[in-house]
């Protein structure tokens, strides 16, 4: 805190540099809440990575068995659940059989949510055991992937209901990850997409397509793997929104469409919040310059 007499008091602009952070929190709160309340929507233009992810799932023959790994927890669900929902709907619309699993403790519940709110909602004719299976969570981090790369039944002896895998027609013939046509990892950190690349893709290169959805902070660690090891990558809510546009364009739903549009819903607050941050950064720099020039003039 500076002490000033009346003639040396900092200008209004300079004082803005020390604004109480609670004003910033209030501004951020409003910038997120208002677009949601006012239902602000903006057009999305799918980028190359979202298109690559969409094309990867489209290119797999109809009716193939795919594995979707929910490698995140409720903390990241706001960013990743939209892309997970869109991916599940896309796979089911394409006629693929989906095997769900999780490497994070709380990921299994999020997979259950996707099954209940998306898979069974928009594809009510699907039957458990033949069209989809929930393997659930397994402890062991990358050890799970390493073992699945050679021996899935040894890693998962039963599904979440206690049914042996041999009794489930969908997974009875699955021996290793090479038996899946596509593996999708929705990941928020460790273990996640990087471990799938390092231990599953490297063990059986070219045996299956590998796509991932990740949080924004992880992108720099995963970019080196795209497009050689990763056939597609969805990054953060923007990637989810772009992918949703592509899926909705080919496989629209009639009711409860908002369940497959949450990524686009979140882009409204993202735009306003980003503009706010740019404004704050500019304001901070103006305050810094004003404070310096005041000091320089003395």
């Amino acid at each position, binding site marked *: 805190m500076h002490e000033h007499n009346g003639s040396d008091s900092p200008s209004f602009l300079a004082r803005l540099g020390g*604004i109480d*952070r609670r004003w*910033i*929190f209030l*501004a*951020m*709160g409003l910038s*997120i809440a208002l677009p949601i309340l006012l239902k602000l929507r*903006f*057009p*999305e*233009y799918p*980028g*190359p990575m979202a298109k690559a992810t969409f094309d990867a799932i489209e290119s797999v023959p109809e009716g193939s068995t795919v594995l979707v790994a929910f490698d995140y*927890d*409720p*903390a*990241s*669900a*706001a960013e990743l659940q939209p892309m997970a929902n869109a991916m599940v709907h896309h796979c089911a619309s394409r006629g693929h059989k989906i095997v769900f699993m999780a490497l994070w403790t*709380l990921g*299994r*519940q999020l997979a*259950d949510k996707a099954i209940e709110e998306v898979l069974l909602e928009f594809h009510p004719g699907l039957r458990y055991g033949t069209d989809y299976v929930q393997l659930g969570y397994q*402890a*062991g981090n990358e*050890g799970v992937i*390493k073992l699945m790369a050679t021996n899935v039944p040894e890693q998962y002896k039963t599904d979440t209901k*206690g049914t042996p895998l041999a009794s489930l027609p969908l997974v009875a013939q699955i021996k290793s990850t090479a038996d899946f046509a596509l593996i999708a990892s929705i990941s928020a950190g460790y273990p996640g997409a990087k471990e799938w690349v390092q231990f599953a893709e490297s063990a059986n290169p070219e045996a299956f397509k590998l796509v991932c959805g990740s949080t*924004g902070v992880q*992108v*720099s*660690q995963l*970019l*080196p793997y795209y497009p050689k090891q990763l056939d597609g990558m969805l990054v*953060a809510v*923007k990637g989810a929104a772009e992918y949703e546009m592509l899926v909705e364009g080919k496989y629209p739903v009639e009711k409860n469409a908002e369940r497959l549009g949450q990524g686009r819903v979140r*882009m409204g607050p*993202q*735009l306003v*919040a*980003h*503009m*706010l*941050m*740019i404004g*704050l*950064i500019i*304001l*901070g*720099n103006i305050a*810094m310059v004003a404070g310096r020039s005041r000091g320089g003039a003395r």
Partner: protein
Amino acid sequence: MLQRTIPIAILSLSGIILMLAYFSPLTTSWGETVLGWFNVLAAVAFVLGAGNLLRVNLERISAQRSGWAYSAITLVSFFAMLAFGLLKLGAVPSEKHPDKHFAGAYEGPTAPYGWMYEYVLSPLTATMFAMLAFYVASAAFRAFRAKNTESILLLGTAFIILIAQTAAGMFLTGWIPQDSVFAFLRFDSMKIAITEYIQTAGMRAITIGIALGVAATSLRLILGVDKSYLSKS
């Protein structure tokens, strides 16, 4: 003396063996096996942690130190989750074995344990994560100042990425044709160039440095050069 020699010997031997085991097909899985041992130890050590948690919070409550109410909430939450989870209170009866209490499902929202997960734990963790949005704004306001050339570069990069990650990027530069000479001025092109080349290169350099740091640290521990983690006899 043995109190320090034996841990160093265990660390050195196991470190060297596991390092060399990676290169032989016969012994590659030893590392995972040891990880499995550690997981068992960690699960057992959880009892120590839980005991410590109880001790610290009970002491705070009994001494009525400031913040003791938080300790009371901690203990109530701890015992509630433990009771409903361990004893499967209120679990949904199993279809195959309806008369066996412990065969019931307790993870769905209809069971108390699942209800607490769905309506208490999940929203709380999501809330803590959401606080990051506010802190990012205040950190950006305070830290992103154009004091020198490097910080100006940082500012410029931040502006490009912030705009490119929203619809504003396409609105401002989407009209530039993809195949024109000026296509590099599109925000999406600049974002791809920054993330795929500049950011990835910097991240790779840091990752290489980290890998070397890990190697050097591990060697110091294996060779017994760094003994700061050991207790005094």
